[in-house]
């Protein structure tokens, strides 16, 4: 009788790279959180690996800064301290939109401490290049190209609008002196379609830049990177003009648009709160404040004792002031 010999074949040990483990984590966390199976295409797996590399670099950078600043009481920026279910969900949405974290200005991770979870929430902020990329894909008609140009005072720019005599909206733009273009006076975006009669010219003025600057209130960026901030504003303004196709809007698009808004507001609050020290100087109360807005003088009042006067110092009455309101 032939003896059957069972031989246990040793399976080769497969060492998974960190990025492969991250991809597996994303899939597993997504399944655990949403009870849904997820199959990533080879391209999506590559995007997940790129996202891992970007986040890993960002965490190393945050941690280095934390140590440099001697913030020992601040939770270390390590993978163990990251809110993974949220990261998995946010990652999937960005991967679904085809955003590549290794392309500059596609995705920037920013860490916020989540006190409920006692971990960091990573906000995967979508940059202006990423927004341009995914918004083109969800447009009703995908443009073949979009041109963005800042216009300087010494450039010449002439918009050519669509009318009865001209079927294609267009422009004439010339950089007269590339070495000294003067100050930025505005910008334009030109959205080009296969059918050129659909081409659209979007003009952004200096006043629009100012509105964005005021709305952002992120003085530091606007002060130090003015040209870049204006170019980003231009891209945002132009991509907002792309008409979104409701049929192409999916959960990932909705999630990224929503997170984008929340992240921007939180960043504004963080960048601008608790900055300038202010104090009051008792005894310095008489200023130019509190002048009445009309000609009628307040009834004379006599301050009691040696107290400071009850009314602020009055300014001369303006000649064009209105009459009594009461």
């Amino acid at each position, binding site marked *: 009788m032939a003896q059957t010999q069972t031989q246990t074949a040793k399976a080769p040990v497969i060492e998974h790279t960190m990025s492969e483990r991250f991809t597996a984590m994303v899939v597993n966390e997504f399944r655990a959180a949403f009870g849904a199976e997820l199959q990533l295409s080879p391209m999506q797996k590559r995007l997940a690996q790129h996202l891992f590399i970007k986040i890993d670099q960002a965490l190393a950078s945050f941690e280095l800064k934390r140590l440099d600043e001697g913030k020992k009481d601040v939770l270390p920026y390590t993978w163990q301290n990251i809110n993974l279910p949220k990261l998995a969900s946010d990652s999937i949405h960005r991967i679904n939109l085809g955003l590549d974290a290794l392309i500059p200005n596609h995705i920037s991770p920013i860490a916020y401490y989540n006190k409920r979870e006692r971990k960091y929430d990573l906000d995967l902020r979508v940059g202006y290049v990423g927004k341009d990329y995914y918004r083109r894909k969800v447009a009703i008609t995908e443009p073949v190209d979009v041109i963005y140009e800042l216009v300087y005072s010494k450039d010449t720019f002439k918009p050519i609008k669509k009318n009865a005599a001209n079927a294609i909206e267009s422009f004439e733009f010339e950089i007269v002196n590339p070495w000294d273009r003067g100050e930025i006076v505005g910008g334009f975006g030109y959205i080009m379609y296969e059918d050129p009669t659909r081409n659209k010219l979007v003009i952004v003025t200096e006043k629009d830049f100012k509105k964005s600057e005021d709305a952002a209130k992120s003085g530091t960026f606007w002060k130090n990177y003015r040209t870049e901030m204006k170019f980003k504003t231009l891209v945002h303004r132009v991509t907002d003009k792309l008409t979104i196709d409701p049929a192409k809007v999916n959960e990932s698009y909705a999630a990224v648009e929503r997170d984008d808004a929340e992240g921007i507001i939180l960043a504004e609050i963080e960048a601008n709160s608790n900055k300038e020290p202010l*104090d009051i100087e008792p005894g310095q109360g008489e200023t130019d404040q509190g002048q009445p807005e009309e000609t009628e003088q307040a009834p004379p009042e006599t301050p009691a004792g040696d107290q400071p006067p009850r009314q602020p110092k009055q300014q001369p009455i303006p000649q064009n002031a209105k009459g009594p309101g009461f």
Partner: protein
Amino acid sequence: MHINVIASSSAGNACIVSHGQHTVLIEAGITIRDIGKAMSYHITDLDGALISHEHMDHAKSLRELARLGVDCYLSKGTAEALGITGHRIHPVEAKKQFSIGPWFVLPIDLVHDAAEPLGFLICIEDYRLLYACDTAYIPYTFPGQLTHIMLECNYSIEILREKIAAGVLPRVMKRRLMRSHMSIDTVLKFLRANDLSRVQEIWLLHLSDRNSNEAQFKAEVQKQTGKIVKVA
């Protein structure tokens, strides 16, 4: 210094701050009758009234106060938005200090969906009260050792997220809230950024009915600061 918060919500805001014989009203977002009732009908005893912005939950009784002879202090933008003028209406400017009797007041510019919203740093004798309601954040710190703090503490971002996920709150509402009201996280960061060694009371104002958790907010501020925390 004694603080009496008469009302603090989107339905109306008003509080009376008094020290000795002197009293100021902050906000007039309730009826003149309710203000009078809270002051035992001695409205004319007020040294003045400070109004943060033109929304009716802060300025409802402004005209009546002025008619009764109370000096009212508000920004020029607020006065213009309300279309109000008069010798009792005193336009004031952010970061320009003024006085009302023994009170010294420094208006501060805030971040809200109003024409020219203000908060107020109010000083009388050794007391320093900071009042900041209806703002997304406070751009300033106050090294002059505050003794009383009154801050809006409107919502929790976690509650907002949950409400949106449940479809209870429209996303556009969330953006508006975040851009014009202060969250518990922003309040805690503000308190961390300031010297609280002399602080006697911290008041949390204008809690949202739907997007806040009073007990949790109070506990978090108490835990972080170790101070008396009151919720209005």
